[in-house]
């Protein structure tokens, strides 16, 4: 999996490309989130437009990340998931407590822009 990070207007953007299931990739995403939190950037957008696969370990990472960010009064936004990835998230009930947006407008609204 490839991971790329950028920052804009006090929001951290982490793009995930490929498959999220391997331990090294889970650690890399966790490290990227930790880095933002240390910089007091607590609004984080996970751009998962090009994430083609996620398993329960990947879902577990997202749940833990959400919990960590919420504890710091921040917000985790999952942006534009692929239909099969969205399906797994919905089955796992993520849509009940996480912010999942499909369009740029929805993202802006979620970020209060």
């Amino acid at each position, binding site marked *: 999996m490839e991971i790329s990070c950028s920052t804009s207007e006090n929001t951290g953007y982490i793009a995930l490309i490929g498959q999220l*299931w*391997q*331990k090294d990739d889970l650690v890399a995403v966790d490290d990227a989130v930790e880095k933002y939190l240390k910089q007091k950037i607590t609004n984080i957008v996970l751009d998962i437009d090009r994430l083609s*696969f996620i*398993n*329960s*370990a990947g*879902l*577990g*990472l997202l*749940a*833990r990340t*959400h*919990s960590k960010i919420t504890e710091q009064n921040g917000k985790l936004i999952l942006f534009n998931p692929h239909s*099969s990835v969205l399906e*797994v998230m919905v*089955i*796992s*009930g993520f849509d*009940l*407590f996480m912010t999942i947006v499909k369009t740029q407008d929805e993202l802006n609204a979620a970020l209060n822009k």
Partner: protein
Amino acid sequence: MTLNKDRLQTYKQRIYSLLSSCKRYRDNYTALLEKSKKTEKLLEERSRSVTELTYKLGRIHSELDDEMETAKRIQEGLMPKELPEAVNLRATAIYIPAGKVGGDLYDIIITPRQKIAILIFDVSGHGIPAALITAMAKMLFANAIEKSDSPAEVFREVNKQLCNFIKTEQYLTAFLGVIDPVKNMMTYSRAGHVPPLVFNTQTSSVTKLDSKGFFIGHSALLNIAEYWNNDVQLAPDDKILFYTDGLTEGCSEDGKLYGAERLRDAFIRNGSNDIKILLDKLVEDQESFRQGTPLRDDFTLLCVEIQDSTYLLTDSGFTREDEPNILLVSSLSEIEKICSIILRELDKCGYGDKTIKQYKICIFEMITNAILHGNNNDPSKKAVVFYKVTPISASMSVIDEGDGFDYNNLPDPLSPENRMKDHGRGVFLMRHYFDEVLFNTKGNRILGRKYHGGK
């Protein structure tokens, strides 16, 4: 005393003659000296040339020696370092070289259809030409086995290719057996190779896997060579001995051949031993027959012991009639390979893209659970994957070496207290995507089934 004129003249002539002779001798001596010097120089030059030539020859010899040594190492590299682990067999091999480079090769390959292909071949002749053909043939066999589980088809393909490559009089003999690990049935073809022997532990008897078939790779065979498949039903504990004729062509001091009969007798005498000890004993038997007579040809012995896979099948959730495919997995790095094998079957049977993606999640969850939780990520432990995909249903089960878990009391990942937890969704997802999920009593085997078009 006075000399008369005539005598004086005579003396004069003699003196002139003597002087002339002296001059001639001196000239000859000078010429000889000159010649001798030239000869000496020439000898020196020749001697220098000989020294240089000897040095050059020495260097060429040493380079050739180095090249042969490299060729030997390359050839040794062609032999499998470790024989792959398969569900229902153990294998061991010995290679005895006669010179630096020979033409023997063996290989065990798990085919993409999860059959176990056992190959042995022997290229005619020795040295670098034989080694070159050996390397080429190994690649051609590997490619052909990748495409087909039919030994006869593999031989036809390799023969066609090798006939175009080999421009010398060389050829090879080969034997290829492809074992179905569930049925313990071996389909084999023989291309002029010495027939392997099967030792039955129950009866202590040996049978020969004979069949017809042409050599491979000689240009004269391009259009006439034909190969046939034969089947043999193997039983648990059967031992199959594959070998090359360098073994039976070993000679005693008085020129007698060791021969196939002596090998057969030695196999019957020692067949009950563990396969490693068995091969050592067979080599010892041939060596004691030869009594130090040098080998004329290198030889290879490969022994495969069939093991009972029934116990695995019993617990797999499948029956023998289901004829499931079997895969072994020991680390998470193998998941994607396993996934592509099984999903290819779903694709072939017309399961749609959506179902295939859902099935992929289930494969990942089943194998991850088995490796990480069942086997504690211990690479020495195996998880056995059984799968059967038909146009009606796609079923797979995974058995690990762990103590099992309580599958009846799993927390609900949708309940508020569990939502934020980073675990506990694997079985939940499988239960969602599969139409049936069944565990064995111990809890170390899960079986999932998805019906084509829903339950």
